[in-house]
């Protein structure tokens, strides 16, 4: 029995070490590439420290108790009786309160900080994000560009994502740049992110939205300001115009590849306004959103 | 205890309760429609009046505190009102940003 418990107890820390060393490459959350993700990363590390401490204390106590107080031969007349111990109980109420406080303060600070742009001096760039079944549409109102399933951003510039959705809720998540926020129909949520380093970052929907949800990935390409400007120019001059009919076909349930347009759908519709596209056209909407009537989902 | 109840010959308690509830209702009506106060003040007052009137029903008509379970019944009602407030106020607060 004794060995078994030891073996088992050693399993967890061991696997922890293995996992941390072997897979850290892929642990996107632990490899932040921007100030938002960095804030969260610091908070996570801070909390992991306390959690490990708690786990160690409990595990050590547990093991010691189990080994020392097993029933052994010769204990027949041992009649343990004990009611409690107020002092001890105060200790293990007080210490958790302190730990929780130590966790709560930075949490509240970070939570408030993440509502604001990451930099004060630099004017943020605004990008509207529309989640639709099952693709991500990005609109740059100032640049007058619209992209599908990928988004280019300049590094070191705060990006203000304005999120909304046509249909089911989705969640906009780019682990290496920062935590997620929901995109919901008929309303708008705001998420500030920023990249420190040029590179390509995986983004995906984190909230289940139906059949094609698994494939709702997008790429965030962080570029230097110069490259970004170049891309904007190029897109503005070479990309086709988005027409309303084209836009409707994009909205149809299904998967699409990447696209770029030199205007945005915001010109004629803003899904974040309640009922902007629904009033009186519920049937139309039902037709659009009903997966059975759409062209079906294309899955590899 | 409700035991004293059966010795009474005239339902004083009920009549007083009824008159009070009418009075409270009409005050609420006047406050809402004719007082001309600010919306906040009106809402505050009429909600308070409603709570008063609910308490009135519970004590005057429903004999909440009687029987050997009176305490449990009272705690139960108070707690359910607490949860009710949490649900109503909480929901409004949480979704305020979209309302």
């Amino acid at each position, binding site marked *: 029995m004794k060995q*078994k418990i030891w073996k088992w*107890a050693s399993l*967890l820390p061991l696997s922890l070490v293995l*996992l941390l060393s072997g*897979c850290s490459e892929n*642990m*996107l*959350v632990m490899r932040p590439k921007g100030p938002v993700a960095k804030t*969260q990363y610091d908070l996570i590390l801070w909390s992991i420290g306390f*959690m490990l401490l708690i786990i160690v204390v*409990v595990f050590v*106590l547990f093991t010691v108790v189990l080994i020392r*107080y097993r*029933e052994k031969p010769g204990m027949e007349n041992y*009649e*343990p*009786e004990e*009611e*409690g*111990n107020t002092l001890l*109980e105060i200790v293990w*109420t007080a210490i*958790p309160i302190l730990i*929780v406080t130590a966790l*709560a303060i930075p*949490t*509240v600070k*970070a*939570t408030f*900080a*993440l*509502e604001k742009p990451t930099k004060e001096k630099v004017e943020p760039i605004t990008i509207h994000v529309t989640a639709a079944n099952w693709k991500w549409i990005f609109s740059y109102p100032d640049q007058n560009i619209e992209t599908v399933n990928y988004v280019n951003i300049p590094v070191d510039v705060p990006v203000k994502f304005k999120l909304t959705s046509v*249909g089911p809720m989705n*969640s906009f998540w780019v682990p290496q740049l*920062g*935590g997620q*926020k*929901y995109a919901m129909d*008929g309303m708008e*949520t705001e998420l500030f992110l920023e990249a420190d380093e040029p590179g390509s970052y995986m983004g995906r*929907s*984190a909230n*289940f*939205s*139906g*059949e*094609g949800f*698994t494939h709702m990935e997008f790429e965030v390409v962080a570029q230097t300001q110069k490259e970004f400007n170049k891309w904007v120019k190029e897109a503005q001059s070479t990309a086709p115009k988005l027409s309303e009919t084209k836009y409707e076909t994009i909205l149809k349930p299904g998967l699409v590849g990447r696209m770029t347009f030199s205007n945005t759908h915001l010109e004629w519709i803003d899904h974040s306004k309640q*009922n902007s596209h*629904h009033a009186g056209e*519920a049937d139309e909407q039902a037709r659009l959103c*009903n997966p*059975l009537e759409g062209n079906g989902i294309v*899955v*590899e | 205890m409700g035991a004293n109840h059966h010795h009474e010959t005239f339902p004083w308690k009920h009549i007083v309760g009824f008159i009070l509830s009418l009075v409270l209702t009409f005050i609420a009506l006047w406050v809402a429609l004719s007082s001309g106060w600010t919306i906040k003040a009106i809402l505050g007052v009429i909600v308070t009046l409603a709570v008063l009137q609910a308490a009135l029903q519970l004590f005057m008509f429903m004999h909440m505190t009687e029987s050997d379970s009176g305490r449990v019944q009272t705690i139960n009602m108070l707690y359910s009102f607490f*949860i009710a407030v*949490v649900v109503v106020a909480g929901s409004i607060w*949480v979704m305020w*940003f*979209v309302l």
Partner: protein
Amino acid sequence: MKWSEFFVTGEPLIYAADVAIVLTVIGIVFVLTYFKKWKWLWDEWLTTVDHKKIGVMYIISAVLMLFRGGVDALLMRAQLTAPNMKFLNSEHYNEIFTTHGTIMILFMAMPFIIGLMNIVVPLQIGARDVAYPYLNALSFWLFFVGAMLFNISFVIGGSPNAGWTSYFPLAGNEFSPGVGNNYYAVALQISGIGTLMTGINFLVTILKMRAPGMTLMRMPMFTWTILITCVLIIFAFPVLTVALALMTFDRLFDTQFFTMANGGMSMLWANLFWIWGHPEVYIVILPSFGIFSEVVSTFARKRLFGYKAMVYSIVGIAFLSFIVWVHHFFTMGAGAAVNSVFSITTMAIAVPTGVKIFNWLFTLRKGKIRFTTAMLWSLAFIPNFVIGGVTGVMLAMAAADYQYHNSYFLIAHFHYVLIAGTVFACFAGLHYWYPKMFGHILNERLGKWTFWLFMIGFNICFFPMYFLGLMGMTRRMYTYSEGLGWTPLNVVASVGAVLMGIGFIVLCYNIYYSARYGERDMTGDPWDGRTLEWATSSPVAHYNFAITPEVKDLDAYWEMKKSGKGFEIDEEKLKPIHMPSNSGRPFLISIAFFFAGFGLVFKWFWLAIIATIFIALGLILRSFDDDDGYYISVDEIKRTERLSGKGA
């Protein structure tokens, strides 16, 4: 509607299920007929109002549902083992995680706990039965038909597929046009009503029917946790009732609560769902804490350390559980103030829970620990649950949760608390109270095999998921591509799941084996127990206690034994015992509920209306029912007591 739409078609898996169901039904009918057991089934089970039998039926249903939910889990793990698997397509995967989550929480964990509480609570407080035996039967049958209704969706009409949380607008008509989500709304409603009635029933039972001398502060800890759980049920389930009703209206009558048009608000669903949903997870964990308390103190042979603090901490947890729900949607944008407040209330729950953990550890300290199977489950709970709990606190940190939300980190958290908490407790309770239910002990050797297989498998399965979450793997993905580095950990997880499956099979075998060869429990007190249920014979006489025991202290039976007498039955003091009569009505009313529900699911309103008339009829008959029950004579009690070796 065409028949081809009515029955789910076109899937080998489902045809296999069809065949299995038909064969099982034929098999059951055949066996019952062949052995002439119909009358027995009706008299002894379908019409029973005995809390012990109702409890057994709850547990049997729960184990069946554990099997169903477990098969779902294994199917999901099979699909996720390798990248780009073609085993399940998206539609099927979506249905499977939805039914897995719903069944495991509502039709496995809850009824398992309710089953144990049915069997144990009246015994622990020295009562003859619950406050409302008839209602208790109705509660069970409502739960049961709700569960059956939910399960047949698999072969008739199609399963719900919007997740156990069924967020709108996805769960609305626009995006889920089939009947699957109607099943969700209606089946949960029916069994939820049953649960609410159970809550009221047991609250009154515990408050009013305790043996003389058993003050609140002398109640066994399990009974305490049930008392508080009932409070949670009573105040949380009405919220679910309303949420599901609104969902039903939206889906069947085109109302606009959660729709995207005309002012509807999908966030409101999430809000209502979690106002119920968070207390719900404590509804399944508090009784588990109670079970662990009983088992730990019995096998450490010590009184529970810090009994009072244990009581206050459950009250504290229950209170807090109603003011934390927003932590399930920190990412919906309610703002920093809202998130901060709910962050702090959530983290606060760590404090009373920690008190409990340390009190258990100190109950063990200086004890005389015996490692029975029930004890192993309870011991394993402590370290495993702490892992789940502290990662819960990490989730509670709003700003950090933006990174964990809906990722496998979350999946790992809640399986750690649900399995190491609730499932371990159910297994501990099952092994511990098994002799009370069936009169024999579950084989310890097989029990330990189950334990080690399941417990190790559990860690292998879910520990890697924390890291999958940090790697960016989100929940509810039916597949993933190569090159993300997720494959090895997913393989590991699936291996763990298989181990758990094997553990479960060993458990089932153990039930069969012990029924045939298991050690009979002649004393009624096989574990040298501390609370009153061990003062009865095993299995328990249908009237429970021949005379009502008098309670002088916490751990009443332990005190009786220590004073040298045990629980003696003085034949002179026996009086006739009043018992409630059996009734077939709860069962029949519930069948009517089934048809009403089925009618609603398919919008066959004529069926729903006819069935509702039957329900009303049943209730009216009940109202005019003058049955006062019957008395068991002193002679019969004497005979029973002597047979069980308890009488003088």
